[in-house]
């Protein structure tokens, strides 16, 4: 049946800030939905508080509200927009919970808004564990034995133990966990009840150690159901799937067993009453007894949907949006082939392995023990023709220099594959046969380590890999969409390299300090280069992102962002230039090696980076330009450090040399606290200074300041964790011209071309330079949204050689209103994670606007969904923090 013509406008709710358990996969899904629904002629309104998302860019929706994701402000958006429908299934648990709240409050009924994609009853059947359990049993499906508890008094004495506690309506299993003993169970229930917004937990028979599988189901209004992808967890039951190594398609189930899961997944979706779109069903399976139980089901697009989408090429979010407005699967084409129908199940001729990335070292109080509560901050996907190849790519993509992960209870198949990898290394050691090792899937870095040679030596000896397409049909049909991976076999035919191709290197897995902001920059660069008539090619391994969507770039290589893979992509693409300055540290780390191998880096960024990072050179430059900076020195020993500290004066900021992201950085107030374990930088620490973040464009001759952010916290708190306001109350016209003057000297002095970020301290009316980074910063999307200037687009033109003059920028831009940014911390999982310090710990950010700095800041704090994180507040902004009561009620689109 064709789409419903009674729907003319739809509201989409995003998922807010990046948190553990809810990351940029919902930017990917929301952007797809916005685009496809607008293309269908619907008016799309969007509400999201996360400025780093692509979906909150002006061109994605007809009206974009950058507002707190709470029922009150979404209700105001609804009252203003009066949409015909609300699509709640693409914004993660946040959007689903909000939709339920708005339905319960009567807001939807009052304004005649229909929930599409999933209705209230279906959401409740899936989310309320008691109801879900009964619905599954009624459908003849197995579920673990369980009891629902809303207070500790209700806990039956015969409750099975070990047991898993699962709180209702929480993200990423927050507050849940496995309890081995009765006392542990009582404690776990206590925590779970606190975490659940409805104070309800499910205490469930533990199926720990069983195999865990997930099926991604798509259904339409005609009752058609397909499984887009099966996913097998390498970690058995007991470890949250977000923390598990997973592989798609499933590897270890015989067909008959797999078909049981498929039948059960459809039965579960139908019993819950999933109206249309994507759903994720999780199973536990005991292979010896062949017991199969349904663990849970999400009646929405999920993290696994993003993974399934990237693993298969099947655009789950896009189709979910189209199905929600009434289309049926058979009416929609398979975009990848352009010919066949979307009503099919992708056939893979490769393996997709996902590895989780943990940043436990950031959180000294985290146990590092995996359980049913998700702790991973990001993930990398590896595609290969064999399990070892895909697994090793995912391992590389995590950028953790990991050896094999320890996975207790691994299935014998995976054990055999791990053993095969060890054997391949042994064989290589004996035979020195690089060609066989590469065919097997060993990365250059491993081959080099085994043979005791350099990666360049390995490269010189090996052939180049073939390019294979992710085509959703195992080569049965010709693929139209250019989505690729590399492997050492006869690749698909390649067209001659296009003239003027630009390769943009992505930022790899999300992590603390490097997240969606850089993906935003990369996606903007793709769009910019395309508009300038170039082919834009993306290389990235993060399956959650918009940049790895099949139709974002001209060609996508889903590969780890390593020297090896980037050089291989360059060999195929013969690029005009490679962009290394928009993806955070991941591409920068390999920039020098790429340049050494003869790859043209767009904008020639290395000299400027070196000038900014080499403290000696940077100090000389500042001296030459007459720019002030905190006093500093380098120390190899404690004695040297003490000498430097005495000279610059306490307190001092001490950090290991050549470490980024504030790792191991601390403030030392006196000699007795001063310890160093490695060569370190000792900087004068400016107490009670105001910190300013400046994002600007530079063409080597001149600089153009896009925005000056004033930090709410005093200098010393990591800039990624600071709240900030633009325009800042301390940035008087006098300070502003001082900043512009400084920027105009410093950025050209560095020889930067493109984006530059400066961190300045304002103390006693003097400006001091803390840091300069000639690359995209974390605040670029925020500034771009606050001012409406497409910063990355301009930066791309500069990198191609344009001058600032040619960009015809206005002399200065003003923010569209006062905007504030607040950081969001994983303190719900890691104790102490919200203690702001010199080391970054936040996972995401929110944006709030208002008429005054105070109002904007209060709105951002409200959007962060809790009171202020701990840590002191800067002198000029004290008043902001002391009046966090948010009164603004006028909700207007940030852009429309």
């Amino acid at each position, binding site marked *: 049946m064709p789409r419903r013509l009674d729907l003319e406008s739809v509201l989409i709710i995003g998922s807010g800030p990046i948190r553990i358990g809810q990351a940029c996969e919902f930017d990917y899904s929301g952007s797809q939905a916005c685009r496809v629904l607008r293309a269908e002629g619907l008016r799309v309104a969007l509400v999201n508080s996360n400025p780093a998302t692509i979906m909150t860019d002006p061109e994605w929706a007809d009206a974009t509200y950058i507002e707190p994701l709470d029922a009150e402000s979404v209700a105001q958006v609804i009252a203003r927009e009066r949409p015909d429908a609300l699509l709640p299934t693409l914004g993660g648990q946040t959007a689903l919970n909000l939709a339920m709240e708005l339905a319960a409050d009567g807001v939807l009924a009052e304004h005649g808004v229909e929930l599409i994609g999933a209705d209230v009853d279906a959401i409740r059947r899936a989310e309320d564990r008691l109801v879900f359990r009964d619905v599954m049993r009624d459908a003849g499906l197995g579920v673990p034995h369980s009891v629902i508890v809303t207070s500790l008094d209700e806990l039956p004495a015969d409750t099975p133990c070990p047991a898993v506690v699962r709180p209702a309506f929480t993200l990423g299993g927050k507050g849940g966990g496995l309890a081995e003993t009765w006392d542990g169970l009582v404690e776990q229930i206590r925590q779970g009840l606190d975490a659940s917004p409805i104070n309800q937990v499910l205490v469930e028979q533990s199926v720990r150690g069983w195999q865990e599988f997930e099926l991604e189901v798509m259904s339409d209004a*005609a*009752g*058609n159901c*397909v499984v887009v992808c099966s996913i097998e967890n390498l970690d058995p039951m007991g470890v949250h799937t977000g923390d598990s190594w997973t592989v798609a*398609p*499933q*590897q*270890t*189930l*015989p*067909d*008959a067993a*797999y*078909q049981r899961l*498929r*039948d059960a997944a459809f039965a579960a979706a139908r019993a819950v009453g999933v109206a249309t779109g994507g759903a994720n069903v999780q199973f536990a399976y005991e292979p010896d007894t062949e017991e199969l139980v349904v663990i849970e089901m999400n009646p929405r697009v999920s993290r696994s949907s993003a993974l399934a989408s990237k693993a298969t090429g099947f655009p789950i979010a896009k189709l979910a949006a189209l199905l929600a407005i009434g289309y*049926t*699967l*058979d009416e929609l084409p398979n975009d990848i082939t352009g*010919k*066949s*129908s979307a*009503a*099919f*199940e*992708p*056939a*893979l*001729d*490769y*393996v997709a392995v996902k590895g989780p990335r943990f940043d436990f070292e950031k959180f000294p109080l985290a146990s590092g023990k995996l359980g049913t509560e998700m702790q991973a901050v990001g993930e990398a996907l590896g595609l290969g*023709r*064999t*399990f070892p190849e895909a697994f090793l790519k995912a391992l590389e993509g995590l950028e953790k220099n990991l050896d094999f992960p320890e996975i207790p209870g691994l299935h014998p*198949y995976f054990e*055999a594959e791990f053993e095969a990898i060890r054997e391949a290394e042994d064989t290589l050691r004996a035979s020195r046969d690089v060609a066989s090792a590469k*065919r097997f899937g060993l990365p250059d870095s491993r081959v080099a380590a085994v043979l005791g040679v350099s990666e360049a030596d390995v490269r010189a000896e090996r052939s180049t890999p073939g390019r*294979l397409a992710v085509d959703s*049909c*195992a*080569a*049965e*049909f*010709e693929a139209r969409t250019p989505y690729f991976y590399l492997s050492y*076999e*006869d*690749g*698909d035919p390649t067209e001659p390299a296009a003239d003027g191709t630009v390769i943009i290197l992505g930022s790899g897995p999300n992590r603390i300090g490097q997240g969606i902001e850089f993906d935003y920059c990369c996606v903007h660069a793709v769009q910019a280069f395309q508009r300038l008539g170039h082919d834009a090619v993306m290389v990235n391994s993060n399956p959650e992102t918009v940049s790895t969507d099949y139709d974002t770039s001209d060609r996508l290589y889903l590969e780890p962002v390593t020297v090896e893979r980037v050089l291989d992509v360059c060999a195929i693409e013969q690029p005009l230039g490679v962009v290394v300055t928009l993806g955070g540290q991941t591409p920068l780390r390999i920039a020098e090696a790429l340049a050494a191998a003869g790859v043209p880096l767009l904008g020639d960024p290395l000299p400027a980076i070196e000038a900014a990072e080499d403290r000696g050179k940077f100090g000389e430059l500042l001296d030459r330009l007459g720019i002030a900076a905190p006093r500093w020195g380098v120390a190899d020993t404690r004695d040297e450090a003490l000498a430097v500290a005495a000279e610059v004066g306490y307190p001092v900021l001490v950090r290991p040399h050549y470490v980024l992201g504030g790792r191991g950085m601390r403030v030392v107030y006196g000699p007795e606290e001063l310890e160093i374990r490695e060569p370190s930088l000792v900087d004068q620490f400016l107490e009670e200074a105001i910190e300013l973040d400046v994002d600007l464009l530079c063409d080597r001759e001149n600089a153009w300041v896009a925005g000056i952010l004033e930090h709410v916290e005093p200098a010393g708190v990591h800039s990624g964790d600071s709240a900030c306001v633009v325009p800042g109350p301390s940035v008087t016209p006098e300070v502003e011209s001082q900043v512009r003057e400084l920027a105009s000297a410093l950025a050209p002095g560095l020889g930067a071309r493109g984006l530059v970020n400066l961190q300045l301290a304002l103390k006693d009316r003097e400006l001091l330079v803390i840091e300069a980074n000639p690359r995209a910063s974390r605040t670029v999307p925020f500034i771009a949204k606050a001012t409406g200037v497409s910063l990355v687009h301009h930066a791309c033109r500069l990198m191609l050689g344009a001058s600032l003059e040619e960009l015809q920028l206005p002399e200065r831009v003003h923010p569209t209103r006062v905007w504030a940014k607040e950081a969001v911390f994983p303190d719900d999982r890691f104790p102490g994670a919200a203690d702001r310090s010199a080391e970054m710990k936040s996972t995401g950010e929110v944006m709030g606007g208002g008429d005054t700095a105070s109002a904007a800041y209060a709105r951002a704090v409200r959007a962060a969904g809790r009171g202020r994180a701990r840590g002191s507040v800067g002198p000029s902004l004290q008043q902001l923090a002391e009046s966090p009561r948010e009164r603004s009620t006028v909700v207007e689109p940030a852009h429309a």
Partner: protein
Amino acid sequence: MHEAQLVLEDGTTFSGRSVGAHGTSTGEICFTTTMAGYQEAVTDPSYHAQVLVFSYPLIGNYGVADERVESDRVWTRGVIMRRSRPAWSGWLSERDVVALDEVDTRALVRHVRSQGAMRCALGAGSTDDLLAAARAEPHLDYERGVGESLLAPPLAIDAATRDSYVVGEGKAVALMDFGCKRSIIQNLVDRELRVTVVPPTWTADQILETKPQAILIGNGPGDPAQLGDSVDTIRGLVGQCPVFGICLGHQLLGLALDMKTYKLPFGHRGANHPVRVRKSSRVLVTVQNHGFAVDPGDRAEVSHVSLNDDTVEGLEGEDFFSLQFHPEAAPGPHDALPFFDRIAETCQGA
């Protein structure tokens, strides 16, 4: 394990590693996109005289088990894989099946997709010897085989039972065997039917004498155009008793209804083929394994259509109903299982 290769009749070669029986083998190359169910696939009699390429690169991951076979022998003449696991390779060796792994199967699938089905030879021989063997292999399609005087004997006769036998209890159904998969018979037995499996040589009268409430024409290998006698038999059955067909059975029914059949460029083999049921507009994800298809001309009895290429996937009339795909799955999705309920209902109602 030895170096070995696959040589196609057009001279294209693919290198690999011999992981099955020693020696060489010949057949018609075809590929399946099914990701699991390798043991079911190679024991499916419809693969008789064919060399099967698995497009999914990891085969043998979950080992082998006796209950996963669709007949009592392996029918594929050869198996081509990217990466095989030891237990599975061993199982093939024990059954004297020539098998290669470490083949660039994606490139091979692409070649077959664009150049069409063709004869091939595989094993440890020289390229020249293998090419000669490939070119000496009889053709599976009737027209080309007759044209080049190099036609394979009717494969279905080879794959079918010689003697009739009975399984199950209940209402009577006759199953015309052309190399029927075990799961088809099992699905009938599970629905409380008494199945008389009859060889293709039986006449219509012989079959009707078993007093069936319904007749099912099973799957099997080869070109339906080669089975003229069976088509005549079926023509004699339509109208006498409800007739059902699966795969080759569906094609034979089409011929009996005076439709035509033709060879597809490279066939449909996989577990993800979408088919629209015309009556309900519902889509079934189906299991397919066929190299020939029915051309209905201007006949209106087409009940199912492929969403991939619009080919005929089902025929339905007052007293016949047939599917080009495999409702018994094994391996693959169960979407079309209700076909067997329909047979059971027909028997119960009669």
